[in-house]
């Protein structure tokens, strides 16, 4: 057991996502090891565009409240700061406010009154247009230069913050910082950077620990503790039964990362090309040789738009003759369904799309199945109609219902009935949402596009039971 050493910053990363389950025992062990802060992330684009377009959290209120209760209780007891990045999944303003409201409720229930700083990084369309017009927005591969039309399409636009707004809030006396959209690494690197740790190790440690226990031998067994010094960091699991190995730690640079050596962050580029990973003991890994090259400050932009609507139907197919000729069947069925839409709606349904996906065959890849592949025992055929309104998507599905249900492989066959599992057969799935922005914006200084708020926390006297 080592306590913190001079010049070293110790950070608890209890989980990869707020709401996925923080363990009180993990926090206790980390605090006992001399932790200076608890930091974690609450968001990502990982689960798709709907969370940003709607400003709705992926995790339930109950799960987020439960995690915040455990975290805020530990924060109050240990008197070390708690930093949460990308609140409410997307980190847009309404998602941040949703998280703040839960935190205030938790404070009241615990009878505590922490000083809470809130960081907003959602951007108005007019600000982004102005930056774009000034030539300060740049497209990332594989996207095209930004247009006003693309900006107007977005329901929400967020700029990914670096560590500076967190450091600013802590210097202003925050006990808890609830941040809007932030790079996963920045929220974990903030306290080490503030305490003077080396930039290379601080950013690298942030990247490795961003998913909590994902960089350990058993990712289901709790979070991690990171110690960052001037030219190294050490990482260990919070659970006594788990281990970090040079392989588990170094392999994390591959995870969800297009480039395993270089990572672009708001104020520069983390380069781990020369990193060395050595075991300290059976469960702790020491990393040296990572560097951070300063670069002009940019913030990545994320934006999501409302798309068209979908209605779906599903049938099960077990008929061996159909299964033996599934590609031909899908081709003929697809043509028949488009004929049916045309006959029913003329061009009134345009633009529409019908997608047939044969689960058990090639629905996941969408690619041709190699010749000679044995037919499946059963297949699930998913029908997806996409149209401008929900009513139209459903009307298309209803118009196609009988064909989809009874379509024979060969015209001369008796009409089959495939296996509908539901009545009614059609299911209104709602909107499609679309990621629109893949760009960075240049800023004059790290706080330029960030807004701060210090919500009033009810005094302890008002706490329940007080």
């Amino acid at each position: 057991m080592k306590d913190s050493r001079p010049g070293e910053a110790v950070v608890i990363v209890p989980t990869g996502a707020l709401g996925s389950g923080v363990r009180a025992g993990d926090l206790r062990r980390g605090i006992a090891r001399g932790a200076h802060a608890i930091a974690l992330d609450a968001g990502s684009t990982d689960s798709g565009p709907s969370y940003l377009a709607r400003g709705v959290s992926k995790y339930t209120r109950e799960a987020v409240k439960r995690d915040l209760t455990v975290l805020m209780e530990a924060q109050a007891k240990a008197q070390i700061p708690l930093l949460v990045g990308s609140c409410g999944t997307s980190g847009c303003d309404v998602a941040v406010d949703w998280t703040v409201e839960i935190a205030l409720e938790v404070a009241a229930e615990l009878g505590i009154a922490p000083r809470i700083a809130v960081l907003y990084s959602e951007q108005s369309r007019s600000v982004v247009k102005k930056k774009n017009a000034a030539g300060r927005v740049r497209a990332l591969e594989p996207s095209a230069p930004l247009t006003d039309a693309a900006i107007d399409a977005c329901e929400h636009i967020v700029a990914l913050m670096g560590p500076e707004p967190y450091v600013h809030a802590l210097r202003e006396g925050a006990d808890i910082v609830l941040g809007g959209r932030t790079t996963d690494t920045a929220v974990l690197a903030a306290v080490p950077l503030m305490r003077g740790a080396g930039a290379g190790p601080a950013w690298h440690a942030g990247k490795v620990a961003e998913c909590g226990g994902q960089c350990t031998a058993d990712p289901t067994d709790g979070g991690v503790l990171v110690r960052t010094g001037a030219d190294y960091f050490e990482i260990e699991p919070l659970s006594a039964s788990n281990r970090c190995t040079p392989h588990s730690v170094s392999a994390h640079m591959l995870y969800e990362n297009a480039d395993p050596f270089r990572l672009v962050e708001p104020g520069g580029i983390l380069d781990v090309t020369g990193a060395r990973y050595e075991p300290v003991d059976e469960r702790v890994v020491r990393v040296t040789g990572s560097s951070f090259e300063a670069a002009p400050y940019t913030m990545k932009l994320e934006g999501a738009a409302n798309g068209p609507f979908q209605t779906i139907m599903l049938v099960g197919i077990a008929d061996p003759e159909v299964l033996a000729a599934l590609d031909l069947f899908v081709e003929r069925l697809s043509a028949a369904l488009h004929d049916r839409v045309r006959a029913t709606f003329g061009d009134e349904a345009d633009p529409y799309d019908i997608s047939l996906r044969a689960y058990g065959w090639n629905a996941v890849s969408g690619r041709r199945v190699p010749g000679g592949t044995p037919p499946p025992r059963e297949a699930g055929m998913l029908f997806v109609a996409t149209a401008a309104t929900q009513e139209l998507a459903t009307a298309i599905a209803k118009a196609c219902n009988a064909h989809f249900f009874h379509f024979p492989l060969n015209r001369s066959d008796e009409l089959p009935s495939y296996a509908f599992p539901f009545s009614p057969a059609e299911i209104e799935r709602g909107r499609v949402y679309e990621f629109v922005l893949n760009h960075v914006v240049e800023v004059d200084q790290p706080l330029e596009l960030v807004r701060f708020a210090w919500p009033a926390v009810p005094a302890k006297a008002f706490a329940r039971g007080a």
Partner: protein
Amino acid sequence: MPKLRDVCSQVRSKNAGPFWITVDLFFADEAVYRRYRDDRAIGAGAFASLYGVDPASIRRFTVDRLSVVKVSYPRPSPQGGVVERDMHSGQQFADLLEVELSGDRTGAADVVVT
């Protein structure tokens, strides 16, 4: 020639942000990694034709320390749109398991780190 499933301990795919997919080929040991890391069957061209993307857009890395070949390619359409089949791209690796190595070492890498 062996298939990737014979020489890799793990093959995986995952979204890397909304606009990219990344594939990691973990070779079973350093010897097979050295033998096959530059194989044409896992070069940029082979990935381009398997996933239907422009070969010039593919980024390929060899990570010697982990005996890993990593290939990243842009999504044909951004994550979660009308035609999405695999939101997290976590199942796109499956066809790679059957890829047969060629023995031809012309699948040059973008970046080599030793």
